[in-house]
């Protein structure tokens, strides 16, 4: 009996031993697989998190009033105007608009009133020793002058005020995207029009691609089709290196060499211009364009090239009648990717374009791009203020542009695979 029991025990242990091991193994396997899955989930979540953060901060700019601080704008009830936009306010206080007629009111000249003008209207005795009569006095003054526009802090507003508070439009998406003035720290109303920045970005990037594309295309054709393998072996790593040099080094080179050169050649007051930015961006976009184009050219089936050569075409005819048409979509992908790189580039552009946030008219003037604006201003913008939010809004625009470009390129390369 005992022997049998011992035998049974041994048999049992033998039975569960491999089972036991395989259970442990299974648990380990599952853990590792779980870890692998976790990390790819982290990546995905990160992208979603970036989108969430950018857009949450960026879109909140549209809930903000362009007036700085706790200010209110007060008008007389006799004034027909009840609401003002931020650009109206800027023009009025810059004394560009001097008559209410120009913004849809009565024909009456505009009279500005700020807290600094107080002494022109009232003596210190009238206001009381602790300015306790100030709200009431100001209220009746404004009410009596139909042409007056007053701006002051909310705390000076009389509790039973007879004059009316002008309603101020919040920053609207339309005024944000199409506004032509970017003065995020202007007083009394900030101006958040990003059109000059968007145009500046596109302007510099497109000119850069116009410079880089022909040169890059020629180099890619030379490397892929003309050069012998030994020359190719020199070109490839050099272009890889060109891609690896930090953008701040390109910016430094641009600042030291290209900017003074442009200033001298075109006899300009400053050399920091859109052209300098475009040239530096062209140099930086070259590796992308060359690599992507070369890959596309290499994908041309050998049989097609040989068929062309067998029909008596020269090598050059084969290139422009067979190879280039066949890889046209790859070449366009290269151009679009190059533009994408140029649009997102920050440091080099920041260093050489002069950063004037004005509507760009010519390449020989300073201009400013979206990334450069973010880099230059984020450090000074107080967290969660309107300026900070506006810069996140710019980040959203940048993100949307580059995502659009990504999807576009992907669509092109999918089409190519189908062919």
């Amino acid at each position: 009996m005992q022997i049998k029991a011992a035998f049974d025990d041994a048999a049992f242990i033998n039975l569960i031993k491999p089972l036991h091991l395989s259970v442990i193994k299974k648990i380990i396997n599952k853990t590792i697989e779980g870890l692998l899955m976790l990390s790819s989930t982290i990546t995905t979540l990160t992208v979603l998190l970036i989108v969430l953060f950018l857009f949450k901060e960026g879109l909140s700019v549209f809930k903000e009033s362009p007036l700085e601080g706790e200010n209110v704008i007060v008008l007389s009830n006799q004034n027909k105007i009840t609401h003002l936009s931020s650009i109206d306010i800027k023009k009025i206080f810059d004394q560009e608009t001097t008559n209410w007629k120009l913004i849809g009111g009565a024909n009456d000249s505009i009279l500005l009133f700020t807290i600094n003008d107080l002494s022109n209207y009232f003596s210190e005795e009238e206001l009381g020793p602790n300015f306790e009569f100030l709200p009431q006095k100001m209220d009746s003054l404004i009410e009596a002058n139909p042409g007056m526009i007053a701006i002051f802090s909310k705390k000076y507003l009389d509790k039973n005020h007879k004059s009316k508070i002008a309603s101020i439009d919040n920053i609207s998406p339309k005024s944000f995207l199409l506004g032509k003035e970017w003065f995020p720290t202007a007083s009394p109303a900030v101006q958040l029009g990003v059109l000059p920045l968007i145009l500046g970005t596109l302007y510099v990037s497109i000119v850069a691609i116009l410079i880089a594309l022909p040169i890059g295309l020629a180099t890619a054709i030379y490397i892929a089709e003309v050069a012998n393998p030994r020359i190719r072996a020199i070109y490839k790593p050099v272009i890889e290196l060109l891609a690896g040099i930090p953008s701040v080094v390109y910016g430094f080179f641009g600042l030291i060499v290209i900017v003074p050169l442009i200033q001298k050649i075109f006899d300009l007051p400053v050399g920091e211009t859109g052209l300098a930015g475009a040239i530096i961006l062209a140099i930086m976009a070259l590796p992308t364009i060359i690599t992507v184009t070369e890959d596309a050219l290499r994908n041309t089936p050998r049989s097609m090239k040989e068929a062309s050569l067998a029909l008596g075409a020269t090598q050059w005819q084969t290139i422009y009648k067979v190879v280039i048409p066949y890889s046209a979509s790859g070449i366009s992908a290269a151009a679009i990717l190059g533009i994408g790189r140029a649009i997102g580039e920050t440091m080099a552009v920041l260093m050489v374009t002069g950063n004037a946030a004005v509507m760009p008219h010519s390449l020989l003037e300073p201009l400013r791009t979206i990334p450069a604006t973010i880099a230059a201003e984020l450090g000074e913008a107080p967290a969660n203020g309107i300026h900070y939010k506006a810069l996140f809004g710019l980040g959203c625009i940048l993100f949307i542009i580059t995502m659009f470009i990504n999807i576009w390129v992907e669509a092109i390369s999918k089409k190519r695979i189908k062919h």
Partner: protein
Amino acid sequence: MQTDFKKRISQSIAFWTFRILSLIVMGVLFSILGFIFVKGIGVVNWDFITQMPEDGMTKGGIYPAIIGTLCLISGSMLFAFPIGVMSGIYIYEYTKDSWYRKFVQLMTSNLAGVPSIVFGLFGMALFVNKLGFGDSILAGSLTLGLLALPVVIRTTEEALKAIDKSYREASYALGGTKLQTIRRVTLPMALPNIITGLILSIGRVSGETAPILFTVAAYFLPKLPTSIFDQVMALPYHLYVISTSGTNINESRGMAYGTAVVLILIVLILNIIANLIRRFLSKKYKTN
């Protein structure tokens, strides 16, 4: 005969144009590198890389910036390398043409296309403000790590894709499980390419300025960091400030050239190492 001659002429015109334009590309590269090296190599010596900056960054060295950049490289790689390689393995080996794979790939390709300044914005909003890390090595490393993540994932995927199907099948035929196949067969074979990708992404991280502007970089901080919550100087940011916004730009020009030389040397050396490793390891696996 006439047309033949024309053909040959047009071919040689076209090819010479290409040759000249590609030589211009080379010329531009070498003139940039040459110019900076000629002006800057005289500045770079032992003291330059081991001394603190002095006199409003017009004299002394760039030691804290070098250390800062090394901190950021190691921090970001500690984050990006394991997560990136593991994601790459998961995406390539475990998800077959499912919606999940397409989704993750869409996300990584989008992440790869995001401009570096947007990473800076995000890093500032999340790590510096929301999570309260402040301007610190931690916040900067995580931001740079995010930037390097898609590169590492892409490289891992490509490296796994490049392995011939027959190796996997042989392992399965011998009774290897999926994980065993990955650990013993595919991963070792893919390693040279993965390491190359890692080194190239180190090169990218070491030169990035925009993501660290608001997450870690200090304008002037002549001491070494003691914890991951300290600010540091970093080479690319140092080059940016001394060439644009220093109080005495002209006196610090020499320092700027020197810093640029050091930055280029880092990228150059990393490129060479990557190529050597690729060559060495792929040879080793071939002979075995």
